């Protein structure tokens, strides 16, 4: 009897373990990376507040593949810590391209709004958990598939000469618990 024939049950069990580990690691990897990224950002700014990163250079290591042509402003949101909803807003943004996008804890980009869609140089909406009803005070409500995630403002630097003005304008971006506003 060959070694393989004698140990076929152990070999089958080894392959089964490999399949389970592989499947679980592929499925969990995005959540793990997102969790690690949010934890890193959380060390720089509290949840539900916007942090404005400097223009990306080779020393920018917080998130892979940054664009050096954009300014990134980021908010790690936590609906639980936000009293059930988080308000995201900005105004008087630059006339060039900008967008605000939202990513859930599984890395999916489930919402994006750019300057052309916003039209007025402003954006104002609530993030709330899927399946909950939120008194929004007339603001649009965006349903978040997870309680935690990342809001990312991208602002194009179309001219380095305008960097200071563009940088100042993007500081209008805000992300805050909605509980206080609704009371």
């Amino acid at each position, binding site marked *: 009897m060959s070694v393989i024939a004698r*140990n076929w049950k*152990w070999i089958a*069990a*080894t*392959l*089964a*373990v*490999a*399949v*389970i*580990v*592989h*499947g679980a*690691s*592929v*499925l969990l*990897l*995005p959540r793990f*990376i*997102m969790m690690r*990224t949010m934890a890193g950002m959380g060390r720089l700014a509290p949840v539900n507040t916007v942090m404005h990163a400097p223009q*990306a*250079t*080779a*020393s*920018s*290591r917080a*998130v*892979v*593949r*940054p*664009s*050096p*042509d954009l300014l990134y402003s980021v908010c790690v949101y936590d609906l639980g810590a936000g009293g059930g909803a988080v308000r995201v807003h900005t105004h008087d943004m630059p006339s060039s*391209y900008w*967008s605000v*996008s939202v*990513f859930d804890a*599984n*890395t*999916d*980009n*489930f919402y*994006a709004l*750019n300057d*052309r869609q916003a039209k007025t140089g402003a954006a104002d909406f609530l993030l709330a958990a899927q399946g909950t009803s939120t008194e929004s005070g007339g603001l649009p409500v965006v349903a978040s598939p997870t309680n935690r995630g*990342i809001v*990312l403002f991208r602002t*194009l630097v*179309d*001219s380095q000469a305008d960097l200071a003005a563009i940088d100042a304008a993007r500081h209008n971006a805000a992300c805050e618990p909605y509980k206080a506003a609704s009371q």
Partner: protein
Amino acid sequence: MLRALKIFLTLAIGTGLGLAVTWATAIRGTMGGNVGDGPWRTSLYIGSKESGPYLRALIAVHGLLALSRQETMYYSAVTDSDGERLDGHCSYRIEGRDPPARWWSITAYGADDFLIPNPADRYSVSMNSINRDPDGSFVVALSKQQVGGNWIPLADGSYNLTIRLYNPQGAVVDDPAHVALPAIRKLSCP
């Protein structure tokens, strides 16, 4: 005792094998996709809820916080137009015209997915910064040695390129394999 050893080996080898397959299928490589357009690769499902587990894992590793196709299409290249791996020791030129998008950029990244350190602090060319010929075409030099005009500095080792198409025209999403993207030509290697 032998049974315990077999259980241990089953778990250890199975775990190692499973993680090795994950590394080979979902971690190794760079941001890409299943759609090819010359040396450039993309996917309509980058950043999207519709992306499958492998693409989602690959993007989490190599392109975290990428936007979905309605906002941006990302094309990445790890080879030149002849299919040879991009090498920082060599010099290249990118030749083309403005891709069909509201705004675009071409950025070089090292194998670690971060911008390539260089004394000039130059990492990309974009719709706003590029110098065009009178007919609207452009040429971008990729090299370690500084050159005038459109130039993206390289460093030793492998690297890759990403074209970002912000607010792409409808044709890009409708037929992402046939977008007029720039060619990448190798000029010389030491």
